[in-house]
């Protein structure tokens, strides 16, 4: 199992080695120590490998991830798993703002809290936050699901498109065009799937959540709203 101590080897060397891996590589498990908040650790991966990072990471960890599993045994800085395409990113601690921003697919699980703008402009990723999320989360979120076991901050789902938001706790306020919607069977089923993927089966029941989505009134320009611009 390849291991990397970022206190003695440069980060670029690690990322270069990870980028050079072929899809059928036998080096499928990588251990990284001493991240010390460095930025862009394990960003741009494109192979079915797993990378386990021991400690706190900086900005854009596992950004643009494809196929890989990235586990952070610590906190993550701004934009963890931003623009992820597929794969699995798991943060054992807290995540800063813009976690999972613009991500197209894959699963992002955050055991702690996520800061502001979690899932901003998400395009198909599934995000599960076991703690709470900050303000302006799921802003302009287009597709995918955002599941929050704790509370949501101000202006949740502002200018939302078709992403589905499931929140168990309180929501401080909803953003423009975001409304609460009924939990139908299909939603309970979908949520149960996401909770299972995050390893939470049996720990929380889908029935404890409320669903929020787009009222779809901002999709097209309406001349009656001209005064608001």
């Amino acid at each position, binding site marked *: 199992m390849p291991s990397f101590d970022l206190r003695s080897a440069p980060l670029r060397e690690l990322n270069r080695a990870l980028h050079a891996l072929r899809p059928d590589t036998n080096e499928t498990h990588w251990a990284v120590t001493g991240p*010390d*908040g460095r930025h862009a650790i394990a960003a741009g991966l494109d192979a079915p490998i797993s990378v386990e990072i021991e400690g706190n990471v900086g900005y854009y960890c596992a950004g643009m991830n494809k196929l890989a599993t990235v586990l952070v045994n610590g906190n993550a*800085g701004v934009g963890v798993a931003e623009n992820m395409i597929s794969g699995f990113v798991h943060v054992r601690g807290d995540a800063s*703002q813009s976690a999972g921003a613009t991500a197209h697919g894959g699963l992002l699980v955050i055991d702690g809290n996520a800061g*502001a703008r979690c899932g901003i402009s998400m395009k198909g990723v599934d995000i599960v936050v076991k703690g709470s999320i900050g303000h302006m989360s799921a802003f302009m979120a287009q597709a995918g699901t955002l599941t929050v076991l704790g509370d949501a901050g101000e202006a949740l789902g502002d200018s939302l498109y078709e992403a589905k938001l499931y929140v168990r706790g309180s929501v401080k306020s909803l953003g423009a065009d975001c409304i609460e919607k009924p939990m139908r069977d299909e939603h309970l089923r979908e949520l149960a799937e996401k909770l299972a993927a995050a390893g939470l089966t049996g720990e929380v029941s889908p029935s404890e959540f409320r669903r929020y989505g787009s009222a779809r009134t901002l999709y097209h320009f309406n001349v009656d709203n001209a005064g608001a611009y």
Partner: protein
Amino acid sequence: MCGIVGLFLKNPKLEPQLGAMLSKMLETMTDRGPDSAGFAVYGSDGASEAGSVKLTLRGPGPAALRSAVAGLEEALALSAQATERDTHTVLAVPAERETEIRDWLRANAPGIDVVSAGRRMEIYKEVGLPASVAERFALERMTGTHGIGHTRMATESAVTTNGAHPFSTGTDECLVHNGSLSNHNDLRRRLRHEGLTFATQNDTEVAAGYLSWRMREGASLEQALESSLTDLDGFFTFVVGTENGFAVVRDPIACKPAVMAETDDYVAFGSEYRALVGLPGIDTARVFEPEPAKVYAWERVPNQPVSGERQ
């Protein structure tokens, strides 16, 4: 962009290492602000005698400062204790003569600025990479109870020493800022009506002036920061120091990054977690992001435990 660091010690045993810890933090933030750097250090109790005040003067070089100090001593029949550090000189003078000294310097020593005044605070700032600024003033060997530093990437005013942070507009009060203010011109005009003076066109100096004004009007540091949330327009993460206090506030949008760490021994602030990595016991510290529009403040009352955040 800009980088901010701050360190407020709860355990007096760490005081001899304050400068060493702060200089490492400052250097780590070079990527966020390579234009200029500065720092304020609050010396340990008893660093200056009762009734005296430390004035930090800044000039083109040691010779110019030496001659200004000599002229000052002769003209005002004063014997000031001077500590030279490169382009800055710290003068310990009787507090009641501060205004007279400032007036004399303004009239007779062009090119010499009074950067700060305080019973315990000294401010050093220069253009250049943070590591070289820290080295020029030997930050590593400074001791004290708390300190605040800044690495600057200029957006709102020129890259000059006067545009570098921290800014001070009151005794033992200083402020560093990451962000930019949009209503600083109007606010500066209003604060001038209240009798405040400003040395630059810089937005951050206005924020420092605003806080000094609120505190002069009787507000606590916490109250002054609370009201800044409504009166200041723009992006900001502020770290503020007073003689015995240390505070942090972020604007309600909270675009500008902030990470804090608290242990039994200290409270530390960094624009990024990287800045905190070298601190003792960081692995077991409570690491958190300060919430938007929430004032975090710590205060040291002599012979009592430090008060403030801790969960």
